[in-house]
């Protein structure tokens, strides 16, 4: 009897263990399933909005005839785009042209906010209410977009670039939030004539976000960060500039072959000395610079509400010549004005790069806010110390360096000039900076194609920052 019960106990114990294993398998699988559910909820809460509005989604182009698409307003409440009798109507004249690239339109080759927010503009807010009323009225109203863009600034920026007679781009944004105040591209086009064909392609290109340019000397800001990280005593380390440098037969010259003499990093930025950076580049190598560049959105996705081109930095090994070229912003490096103004804005903002955005909030037909964009940080890969040092240097550029033509004690502009040689004849002029330098309110990038140097660019910068101060 006793032996039997013992055996039975053992059997029961085994069974209990066996059942626990089954329970364990069920629970493990349950955890996986819950993980999937949580991921799906996260997808709906966070990721889906940015994703589904991409023009890669064919549903963007499907328009519901029962829904009256919402309007697009600037930050002053001006209606930039609206629906009248089933057709989209845009601003006319200069104002319309200034907004053309940002607003865009919906078609096969569509672009801009009209395409990227086509679904959002058709989304029916307070649907049940509207549908019940619609039994009589037949139509329902989609949501509206409210932009961070200030129409007045937008128009002024566009006028400036048209006056200069050059193709190019201007972007102004708040470095502390990432709010874009103005973003224009020249040449533009009037909506009345906006019929896409291949020969007009140049006019349809949004140079601010999709134009890829050699950054030229503006890129020295990126090189400077690499130098700060890799040459511990960069502040005292001196280099003798003779106007040109020759390493293994590869020659780099300073602008007009001016000899800058004995200089440090600070002077090199102020005077935009090519040979200093070429020399340092040869000492440090390409990998460290690539590391810095990739921390500053090169070779990575740039998240923005409309189409953006990826900034590119060479991924291959380079020879001495290309190495030196890359350090002074030539070489194979390509970037967008939007990326450069984001980086310089980050420098002005104590090293914190804010994500630029143009849609402030979305409201429904009653004006109720449905979705408000919260300012968000891209990263703080520039340290506070680096940004402070860079700030000092960029102030000097305007005080006594290459940008001294806009030295102005009231506006307090800081920034970096650049002239990117594309061919022997063609040089693009850049200025990217911010103001006022003690507490930056606005960051600005101006790019003029084929403009010899940055003189015309600087004029526009001064004018626009003056205008912005008046707001």
């Amino acid at each position, binding site marked *: 009897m006793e032996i039997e019960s013992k055996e039975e106990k053992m059997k029961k114990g085994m069974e209990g*263990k*066996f*059942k626990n*294993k*089954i*329970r364990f*398998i*069920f629970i493990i*699988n*349950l955890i*996986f*399933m819950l*993980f*999937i*559910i949580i*991921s*799906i*909820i996260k*997808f*709906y809460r966070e*990721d*889906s*909005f940015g*994703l*589904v509005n991409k023009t*890669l*989604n*064919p*549903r963007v182009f*499907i328009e519901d005839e*029962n829904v009256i698409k919402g309007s697009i307003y600037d930050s002053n409440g001006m209606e930039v785009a609206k629906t009248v009798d089933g057709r989209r109507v845009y601003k006319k004249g200069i104002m319309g042209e200034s907004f053309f690239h940002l607003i865009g339109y919906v078609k096969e080759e569509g672009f801009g906010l009209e395409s990227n927010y086509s*679904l959002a503009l058709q989304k029916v807010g307070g*649907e*049940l209410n509207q*549908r*019940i009323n*619609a*039994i009589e009225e037949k139509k*329902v109203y989609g949501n509206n977009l409210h932009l961070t863009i200030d129409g007045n600034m937008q128009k002024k920026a566009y006028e400036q670039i048209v006056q200069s007679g050059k193709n190019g781009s201007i972007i102004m944004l708040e470095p502390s939030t990432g709010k874009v105040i103005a973003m224009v591209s020249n040449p533009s086009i009037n909506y009345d004539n906006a019929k896409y064909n291949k020969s007009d392609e140049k006019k349809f290109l949004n140079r601010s976000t999709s134009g890829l340019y050699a950054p030229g000397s503006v890129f020295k800001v990126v090189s400077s960060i690499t130098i700060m990280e890799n040459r511990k005593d960069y502040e005292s380390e001196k280099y003798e500039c003779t106007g040109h440098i020759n390493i293994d037969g590869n020659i780099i010259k300073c602008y007009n072959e001016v000899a800058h003499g004995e200089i440090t990093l600070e002077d090199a930025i102020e005077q935009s000395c090519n040979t200093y950076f070429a020399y340092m580049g040869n000492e440090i190598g390409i990998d460290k610079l690539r590391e810095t560049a990739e921390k500053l959105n090169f070779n990575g*996705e740039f998240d923005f509400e409309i189409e953006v081109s990826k900034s590119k930095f060479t991924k291959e090994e380079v020879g001495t010549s290309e190495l030196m070229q890359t350090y002074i912003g030539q070489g194979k490096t390509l970037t967008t004005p939007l990326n450069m103004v984001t980086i310089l804005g980050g420098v002005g903002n104590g090293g914190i790069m804010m994500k630029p955005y143009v849609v402030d909030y979305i409201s429904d037909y009653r004006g109720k806010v449905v979705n408000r964009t919260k300012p968000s940080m891209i990263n703080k890969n520039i340290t506070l110390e680096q940004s402070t040092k860079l700030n000092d240097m960029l102030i000097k550029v305007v005080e006594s360096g290459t940008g001294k033509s806009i030295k102005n004690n009231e506006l307090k502009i800081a920034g970096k000039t650049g002239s990117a040689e594309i061919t022997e004849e063609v040089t693009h002029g850049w200025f990217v900076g911010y103001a006022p330098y003690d507490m930056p309110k606005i960051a600005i990038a101006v790019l003029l194609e084929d403009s010899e140097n940055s003189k015309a660019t600087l004029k526009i910068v001064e004018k626009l920052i003056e205008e912005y101060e008046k707001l």
Partner: protein
Amino acid sequence: MLKLAILISKYLYIGYISLFLIFSWGYVLEERGLSNSRVRYSMHQFNLILVFNITTYIIMYLSGMRSGIGSLGFIVTLSIIMVIFKLLSKKIFEGSCPILWNSILFLINLGVIIICRIDYVLGLKQLMFAMLGLIVALMMPMILKVVPKIEILGLIYLVVMLGLVLLPFFYKESQGGSLNWSYITIFNRRITFQPSELAKIVYIFFLSSLFRKQNSKFKIGLATITSATLVIILVIQKDLGTALIYFMTYITLLYVGTGNITLSGLAIVLASIGSFVAYKGFPHVAVRIDSWKNPLSDPFGGGYQVLQSLFSMGTYGYLGSGLGQGYPEIVPVVESDFIYSAIGEEFGGIFAILLIVIYILIFYRIANIALRSNKKFNSLVVVGIGSLLYVQTILIIGGVMGILPLTGVTLPLISAGGSSLIITIIMISIVQWIQRNNMIEKKLEIEEAKKHREYIIEHRNRGLFEKDIKAYKDVVSEESEE
């Protein structure tokens, strides 16, 4: 007016699926004796399927899709099939779990509707397959009765299984880049099917048969070598998803059957190394992994499918576009691999998430049945079937949502495709058959105990068997506690 109706229907559908789950909850509470409301939950739950179909018919009729689900004939046929099966299963599988039946009927019904909405002809085919599967399910008890001692047929399973997975090498029928299709010719008609689907059941029987008793090294070795061979064959046939499902089933049954944690862990480590080698070695594997990590990096190449699937899931948000109002046909192979996106697009995100809860419910009921089985073989078969379906569901839903790398497996009971649907229904019917046997055994035990007690009481009254009474005392008291 139509738009208003559709808007209301979105809420109704979410209501139905929520009620469906609430009724299950009520049933489980009742079963455990935690509630005593005497509501006939399982019947109400089944009726929800019919209400679901009526709503669908009205919406489809109003939106003018009258050839497909909007035709009265179709929806009535579908509903009648459901009702007949429900009634017959109650008789044939006495004591089986009604919640499990209702859940699979809900999924089959939903699958037929959404496939029909995408493609009428495919939907009709799916309806036929469903009917066929359900008929076979009803015949399963008879079939299983005929087979002698299903638990000791280990080697026969091995031969059948290898024959099945090798079949595509001889009767090739390449579909969608995979080499795992085969065909048979009956009455001059070529019928294509996936042998690896059919082999799933045989595989589970094989492993359960090996692990059912004290485990020798030989048995574990045989199971391991066979599983490895199967997985390698499936990888060669480019059926990565099924290979992974087989592997996970092996791990599960190895762990539950033998308790050998070392070996299970070792297998997982080896498999990880194997997948890494596959990632480096096979370009078609690498493409899938890369496009999973970032579908936007190659939106028209490797990332195309997942991206389109995410657009489909995401565009109309939590509530969906409403049935018939979305554009699921944009997604490639939406009727099979990406059926979950189509459901998410038209029925909405909340519905899609609650659908996963129905799958969890199914696996909960299956685990419950495994726990109640007296025979180890039966428990192992039920656990094997449950975890196989579980893994398959996780793989495909995770895949279409971009959470896991995409492996082209079907969503159990919903995706279009005869092989998968019929085999899954058969699997569930095997589980139910085991549950029915459990219940019959339990009934017999109770009856026997009752008779015994009556016998003893009778004899005690006569003053006989004084010693025997003392000996049986413990047994009686134990039984009366039951």
